[in-house]
C-alpha cells in the first residue's frame, strides 16, 4: 500500500442489536482513501453507507449500535483502540463530517462565528483574539462572501446553500486529514449543488484533504469521486475507478443501477428498472444478497456468498460471475 493512505478500513462489521434481533448494517466492509483523493460510497437507503461513516467517527447510537469487528486505521493508528477521551480529540481535528441537512446541523440560537469558533477553540490552542481571524479564514476558504459580517449572523439569515457552506467551514476549520461528507448536496438545488461540488474540488486541491463522499446519486459521483465503492445490503459489492464504473460496470447490481438512472442525452421509452426491493437486513438471503433481484444469477449464488475478487490494481468485485 502506498504511503499516502490516510484512512484504511479493514473488514468492518457494525451491528445494531434490536429487539427483533441483530441487524448487520455493515457486514465486512474494507476500503482505503488516499491523501487528496475522494472515495465515493454509493448505495440506496438502508445499505449501510451512513453507518459506515458514523462507525469511522465512532458516533454510533450506543448501546444498540456497535462495531463488532474490524479495524479503522487513520494514519497508522487504529481508531477502535483509542479511549473515548482520545477519540474526542480526533473528531473535528483529524476527521470531520458534513451532514445532509444544513438546517438541522446548525444550532439556530448561536451565531455563525460562535459555531465555527467552537471547533477552533476546542482543538487549537489559540488566544481568544486570534480565534476570530481563524474563523474568518475558514469562512473564506468556503468562499462565503463578506465573512467579517457573517460571523455575527444567525443561521436563519442565510440561504440553504450558504448554510451548507458554513457547515463546510466548521468541518474544515481545523484542517482535518479526512472529511466524511454524507449526502452534503442532496438538500441543495441543482445549480447550487454544482457550485458546492466545484468548491469542494478547489478546497481539496488547496488542503489535500481525503474525502469520503456518501451519496445515492450517480451524477454527483461522476463529478467529484476518483474511486467508488458500490454498497448493497451492508457489503461493498464493487470498487473501481469512477471512469471504469461508468464505462464498464461488472457487478450485476452496479450495471442495473447505472442503467436505471435516466440520462439527459438519451431518451428511452421505457426505463430499465430493477425488480423487487432490497432485502430486509433482519432476514438476509443465504447466498449473494443481490441474488433474488439478479437477472443473471447462477445456482451457486443462492447458496454461497461470493468472495471479493481483486481483478486489477483499483478494482474488486464480489460476484460469482466475475472471475
Amino acid at each position, binding site marked *: 500500500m502506498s504511503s499516502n493512505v490516510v484512512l484504511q478500513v479493514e473488514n468492518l462489521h457494525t451491528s445494531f442489536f434490536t429487539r427483533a434481533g441483530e441487524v448487520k448494517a455493515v457486514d465486512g466492509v474494507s476500503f482505503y482513501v488516499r491523501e487528496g483523493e475522494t472515495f465515493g460510497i454509493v448505495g440506496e437507503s438502508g445499505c449501510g453507507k451512513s453507518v459506515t461513516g458514523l462507525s469511522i467517527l465512532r458516533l454510533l447510537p450506543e448501546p444498540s449500535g456497535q462495531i463488532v469487528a474490524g479495524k479503522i486505521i487513520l494514519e497508522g493508528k487504529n481508531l477502535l483502540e483509542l479511549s473515548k477521551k482520545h477519540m474526542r480529540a480526533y473528531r473535528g481535528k483529524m476527521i470531520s463530517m458534513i451532514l445532509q441537512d444544513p438546517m438541522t446541523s446548525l444550532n439556530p440560537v448561536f451565531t455563525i462565528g460562535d459555531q465555527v469558533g467552537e471547533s477552533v477553540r476546542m482543538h487549537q490552542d489559540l488566544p481568544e483574539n486570534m480565534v476570530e481571524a481563524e474563523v474568518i479564514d475558514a469562512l473564506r476558504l468556503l468562499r462565503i462572501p463578506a465573512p467579517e459580517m457573517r460571523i455575527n449572523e444567525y443561521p436563519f439569515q442565510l440561504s440553504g446553500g450558504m448554510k451548507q457552506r458554513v457547515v463546510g467551514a466548521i468541518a474544515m476549520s481545523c484542517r482535518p486529514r479526512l472529511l466524511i461528507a454524507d449526502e452534503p448536496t442532496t438538500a441543495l438545488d441543482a445549480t447550487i449543488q454544482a457550485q458546492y461540488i466545484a468548491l469542494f474540488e478547489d478546497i481539496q486541491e488547496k488542503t489535500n484533504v481525503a474525502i469520503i463522499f456518501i451519496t445515492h446519486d450517480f451524477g454527483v459521483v461522476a463529478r467529484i469521486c476518483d474511486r467508488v465503492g458500490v454498497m448493497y445490503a451492508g457489503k461493498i459489492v464493487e470498487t473501481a475507478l469512477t471512469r471504469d464504473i*461508468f464505462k464498464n460496470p461488472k457487478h450485476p447490481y452496479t450495471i442495473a443501477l447505472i442503467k436505471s438512472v435516466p440520462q*439527459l442525452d438519451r431518451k428511452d421509452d421505457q426505463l430499465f428498472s430493477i425488480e423487487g426491493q432490497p432485502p430486509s437486513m433482519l432476514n438476509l438471503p443465504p447466498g449473494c444478497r443481490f441474488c433474488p433481484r439478479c437477472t443473471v444469477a447462477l445456482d451457486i449464488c443462492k447458496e454461497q456468498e461470493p468472495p471479493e475478487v481483486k481483478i486489477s490494481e483499483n478494482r474488486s468485485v464480489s460476484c460469482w460471475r466475475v472471475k
Partner: protein
Amino acid sequence: MATKILLEARDIVKHYPVTRGLLQRTVGWVRAVDGVSFSIEYGKTMSLVGESGAGKTTIARQILLLEKLTSGSILFEEKDLYKMTPKEIKAEYRPKVHYVQQNPWSSMNPRMRIKDVVGEPIYVNNKQSKKDVDKDVVKLLEQVGIGAEGINRYPHEFSGGQRQRIAVARALALNPSLLILDEPVSALDVSIRAQIMNLFKDLQKKFNLSYLVIAHNLATVRYMSHSVAILYLGQLVEYGDSETLFARPLHPYTKALISASQLTLPEDSEGKAKQIILTGEMPSPLNPPSGCRFHTRCSEANERCSKDVPEMRKVGKQLVKCHHYE
C-alpha cells in the same frame, strides 16, 4: 385544435402580502408567481422545472384551488374555474384533478388501513356501499401493482416505492383526467424510481391521463414529459416541447440547469470546461432584480438586461424570455 387542451393557465399571478407591526400593515409583496401562462393537453405531460422558491408549488396550489389567484385565470375543459359555482367545482372539477405528493411517508394517515386510504375519495364522492368500495379499491391497487391482500394492512407495512404506488391508486380512485405530481420520485431510491416512472407512463397510456409534473431533476423530467416549462423567480423563462428544449436550450438559465444535471466524469476535462456553474443564488422574490430577473447570475448579461424586461418570444418551436433572441 382548441379541444386538445385540458387545462390552461392564463397569465396567472400570485402575490403574498408581507405584513409588519401591530396593525399588520402591508409593507411589501412576495411575488411568488408573476404572470405565468401554459397549457396541458389531454394525455400529455407537462413539467414545471425550477429551483426552490421559483414558484412551482405555488402554481400547483393555485390549480388545486387551495389558494386564490391574485390575477389571471385558469381554464379547465374550456371553463374558467373562477366563474364556476362551488357546487360545480365540487361536482365537475375536484374529482378530475388529483395531487400526488412528494413524500409517501407523510401523505397517508398512519392509522388508516389501505382500503380506507384509497377508498376515502370514493366514499366522499360516490355514495357506495362498503363492499362495493372495497371491490373498487382492489381493482385500483391491482392497476398499480399491489396485491389484493394489501387492503387490510396499514401504511407502515409498505416500503417507500409501494406507498407511492398506493398514493397513485388513491389519486386514480375517481377516474381523474389530470394528476399533479409534485416531485413524485425524489423521495425514492434510485432502483425504485425507475419502477415508479414506468408505472406513471403505463397509466398515462391506459387512461389517457394528463400530468403536471413538478420537478427539479431534469433527467427525470426529460424521461416523463412532452413539454417543459422552466421557471425562474416566479416567471417562465423558457417553454416548449421537451425534445427541442433539451436538444437546443435557448435561455442561459436552461443551459446552466442542463449543464448541472449532465454526467461528467472526473477525467473528462473537455466536458468539465464546458460545464456552466452559476454564481450566486436566486434573488428574493420580495424584491426581484430590475430588467431580466436572471441578469444577476447570467454570464451573457449585458447592460440592457439590467434595464429592460424581456418579452416572451417565439423562437422556432420554443418560447423564450431573453434579450439575446430578438
